């Protein structure tokens, strides 16, 4: 379940060092840190997508000042009193210190080009983006909020799998997040996932692949088993493109690969299209709700919102 996947996350504190240079791991080009950040942490030479933190992601997606975090007080407990070479509590404290985060997922509400959404963004730096009780509960609350408000849910995934230190409780978060997706689909509220490098194990085998539309960033590793585990099992070296987003697209496992610069527009377009359908389905209910007095309720607001996307810039890709 939990995977060993190597991801270069040298920018530990999050953000970049102004004025310094960084070399692209793919094309070895030396890149100016400020320019790299301005280019959304994408290599201007070869298009390599550097891993980014959850806060950077939210900064790139959410309209200025629109992000409101929820469930920020949730912290991991240590139900198993887990101890390997070090106690679990120490590993959590270290992750909190290194990342300035309280867990491997941030959830909240935001607006994307004026469209209200609920965002759930994972952070690989926090214990390899592993899913334990807190990640499961935060995802549940995000889904619950999406159902209450009828805002679509966008989940950005980056995970090594279920968190070993919480044992079966972590494994069962797969069941819990699946139940949350089922709640979304009963509503129905649109649910889109963005799989980033790397999305593996229990997160891939639960909510990440249960979305209405699955997007991925170029070059992301998307694989249930880690490459090392597979190599050990089949006793062969894996091809370079194994499990990458491009290979997943060819094998029909994802809908599209979206470059970081295009992500926000794509999300708004797809969600707008899905909501258009939801709105049509809800139209009779809306009329009923409005009644003779013409009261504007939740459904009316949904329709209003969809109309407001009409100006959203459409670009082909």
């Amino acid at each position, binding site marked *: *379940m939990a995977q*060993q996947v190597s991801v270069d996350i040298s920018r530990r504190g999050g953000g970049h060092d102004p004025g310094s240079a960084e070399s692209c791991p793919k094309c070895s080009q030396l890149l100016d840190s400020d320019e790299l950040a301005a280019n959304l942490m994408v290599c201007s030479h070869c298009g390599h997508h550097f891993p980014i933190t959850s806060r950077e992601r939210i900064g790139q997606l959410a309209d200025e000042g629109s992000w409101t975090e929820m469930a920020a*007080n*949730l*912290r*991991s*407990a240590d*139900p*198993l*009193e*887990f*101890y*390997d*070479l070090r106690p679990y*509590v120490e590993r959590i*404290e270290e992750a909190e210190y290194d990342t300035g985060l309280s867990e491997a997922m941030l959830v909240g509400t935001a607006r994307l080009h004026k469209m209200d959404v609920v965002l759930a963004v994972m952070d690989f730096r926090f214990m390899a983006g592993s899913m334990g*009780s*807190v990640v*499961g*509960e935060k995802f*549940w609350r995000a889904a619950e909020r999406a159902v209450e408000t009828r805002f679509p849910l966008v989940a950005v995934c980056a995970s090594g799998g*279920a*968190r*070993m230190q*919480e*044992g*079966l409780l*972590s*494994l*069962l*978060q*797969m*069941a*819990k997040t*699946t*139940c949350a*997706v*089922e*709640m979304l689909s009963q509503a129905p509220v649109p649910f889109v996932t963005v799989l980033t490098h790397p999305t*593996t*194990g*229990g997160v891939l*085998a*639960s*909510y990440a*692949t*249960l979305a209405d539309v699955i997007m991925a960033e170029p070059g992301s590793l998307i*694989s*249930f*088993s880690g490459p090392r*585990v*597979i190599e050990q*099992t*089949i006793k062969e070296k894996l091809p370079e493109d*194994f*499990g990458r987003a491009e*290979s997943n697209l060819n*094998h*029909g*496992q994802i809908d599209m690969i979206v470059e970081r610069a295009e992500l926000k527009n794509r999300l708004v377009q797809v969600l707008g299209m899905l909501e258009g359908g939801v709105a049509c389905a809800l139209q009779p209910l809306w009329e009923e709700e409005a009644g003779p007095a013409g009261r504007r309720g939740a459904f009316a607001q949904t329709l209003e919102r969809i109309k407001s996307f009409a100006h959203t810039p459409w670009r082909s890709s």
Partner: protein
Amino acid sequence: MRKRLSELSRLPTLPGVHLRDEASKIKRRLHELGGGGRGDSSAAWEKVKLARHADRPYTLDYIGLMFPGFIELRGDRCFANDPAIVGGLAAYQGRTLMVIGHQKGRDLASRTQRNFGMPRPEGYRKAQRLMALADKFGIPILTLIDTPGAFPGIAAEERGQGGAIASTLMRMTRLRVPTVAIIIGEGGSGGALALALADRVLMLENSVYSVITPEACAAILWRDAKEARPAARALKMTSADLEELEVIDGVLPEPRGGAHRDHEGAARIVKEALEENLRELEMIHPQARRQERLEKFRRIGVWRENGLTLF
């Protein structure tokens, strides 16, 4: 020291008070003194070995001993028939039951054919097909879980191993018929869970159920796969540990000496548990049963919020 530790963990976390440093110091000391927490590593490792015992009854053994008739149904209608998961219609007290379970082999040839009980995506898609079939005709479902995990291979990934497990979980949340899952041997991570999102989840006494195999856990956290013994203890994967954590619905005691010594006895115990649980579940309205299932998995998790530990 244990008493002090539990006192500490009961105190709310206050800003500026570093109780957790104190707690982790005590935990480290306890660990050095041996034992670490409840249970010791050799007992947990014994259970892992028992759960994997080559003479333990497997899914088809239980089916043969529990039901007078069984018709196996095969294939996912897309790609292949995965022999690592078997399923079909069983005659059960004058009516029908859908039984789906992981299947291991007994000798080299059958072990290879069954892929050591490690399913590929087509196995999970077959399971989904059979679940949909059972749901259509109101046939209750029994799943028997016994796998080291889903198969890690290139082709399995290309055919969407992760997505196949996820969509099986989703299918189980939607079922209107009663579902009972019993861990009969190894409950190995996502590959096991895929068949275990059920109204009732029971474990045989000597079975294990875990997020990761102790060997793989040791390889990552201890950086040495040979440290599987302490990993088995730390993961709290035995039926007793999991009952204490309240993440399963019950433990079924095995016949004297273990299920591998007495297949008939084990099958009798499983059948009785099935009967009792189905009787209870069938009294609930399908809609309510489904809602209860969602609620049950929704509640799973332990975290701290505003200084309080919540279960």
